[in-house]
């Protein structure tokens, strides 16, 4: 299953609540860590391949904070920036891209109205349309799509949703396991394998990083990228270390 020169990325994920970077467990924001743009710049300088901002309570509060954070970040961060959380229509996408985002990650609004995927892909290109999936285990081989930051059940199977959404023009998938998120117990590799098996668009696995061999497991299970959050925020690891670990496998990673 290993492709020659398969690229692999290590992404810093920053969950944002209002003006703050927060630490989440099972997608619920628990603790304020600091100013997101300060951490974003630090990770860029450390060698993050990309950054993700996820506004975890965007549907409850105004969005002016997020746009301002994106603007400040894009001012001196020169790697791709994906922004998600509370995006409902093309105008929201336009506003984020104008503020300096390169891609948008959409979950809830796409589940409620799948055609939004097609509209975003058509107007801004598939490379801009990241499908964010919040997945919760139903059984060993079955996962359900949740919306609204893990609060609402959709009744939709993750695997079926991936297939439908990719047909509509998704360019990349951000796959977050609600079960694993914030636990440090490792990524949900069965979920990753199952999604990898049904799509040819790149998959970013998120939720559960705890130690370095979790990266190797993710690569073996087919991940094209991993998103790491509080292990970076709390200095339990850094970009250099994560890149070195990935370099011990067959994938191609950036030499820092």
């Amino acid at each position, binding site marked *: *299953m290993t*492709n*020659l*020169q*398969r*690229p*692999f*990325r290590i992404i810093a994920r920053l969950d944002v609540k209002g003006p703050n970077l927060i630490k989440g467990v099972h997608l619920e924001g628990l603790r304020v860590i600091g100013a997101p743009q300060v951490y974003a710049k630090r990770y*860029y300088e450390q*060698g993050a*391949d990309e950054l993700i901002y996820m506004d975890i309570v965007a549907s409850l509060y105004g969005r002016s904070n997020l746009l301002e954070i994106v603007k400040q970040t*894009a*001012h*001196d961060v*020169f*790697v*791709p920036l994906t922004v998600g959380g509370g995006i409902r229509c093309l105008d929201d996408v336009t506003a984020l*891209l*104008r*503020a*300096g*985002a*390169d891609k948008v990650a959409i979950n809830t609004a796409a589940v409620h109205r799948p055609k939004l995927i097609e509209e975003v892909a058509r107007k*801004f*290109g*598939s*490379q*801009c349309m990241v499908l964010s999936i919040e997945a919760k285990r139903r059984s060993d081989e079955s996962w359900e799509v949740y919306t609204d930051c893990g609060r609402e059940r959709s009744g939709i199977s993750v695997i079926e949703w991936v297939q439908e959404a990719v047909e509509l023009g998704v*360019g*990349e998938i951000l796959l977050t396991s609600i079960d694993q998120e914030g636990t440090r117990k490792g990524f949900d590799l069965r979920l990753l394998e199952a999604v990898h098996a049904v799509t*040819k*668009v*790149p998959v970013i696995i998120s939720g559960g990083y705890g130690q370095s061999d979790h990266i190797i497991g993710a690569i073996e299970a087919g991940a*094209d*990228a991993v998103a790491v959050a509080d292990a970076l925020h709390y200095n339990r690891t850094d970009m250099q270390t994560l890149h070195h670990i990935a370099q011990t496998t067959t994938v*191609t*990673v*950036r*030499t820092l």
Partner: protein
Amino acid sequence: MSKSCVSIVDYGLGNLFSVTRALQTSGASEIRIATSPEDILNAERLVIPGVGSFRDGMDGLERQGIAAAIREFASFGRPMLGICLGMQLLATKGTEFGEHSGLDLIPGRVVRIPMTDKSGITLKSPFIGWSTLELHDSINSHKNAIACLSPQDAVYLVHSYQYAPESEANILATYRYGGHHITAAIQSGNISGLQFHPEKSGKVGLKILSHFLETVV
């Protein structure tokens, strides 16, 4: 010609903010946004950024009447750089969502990246990630921005289509994916194009842009 002044073509596609900031950080003290034929013809150096489909890109250029101005600018001999879609639009034809005519400044076609690797395994598409480049011998016969790269320098790419120039001599650099050589940079005289995003390639990208700003044709 000063290093300071560069004009960025705005044809409604892509995020001009990143390219602007990256050029400022790379040493450009004056950046103009070019939206009309006059803006383009008066440019000292021209950058054509852009993301999206080939068809939308050409529609954008034609709608604002700037495609003809870009062709005329190219004949002046001043430095011109296409980035990502802006590079692909330099081709004779694009094949995304049907065949469409491009600017035809460097003869060639824009075609899909191979769907499988050399052993038949399906490749992920779009390609998204960082790669080092293989610089071709042609690089010595051009003054260009990427000659400054070290072998370990990686750049950020995101694309499903690539430039296939008619002449190998126009290929400055490729990268390897699934055993294939994928076009990463092209040049013909004063006209150059990068498939990757220098504005998203960290310090390596800024170094390339800085060299572009110093290029004297």
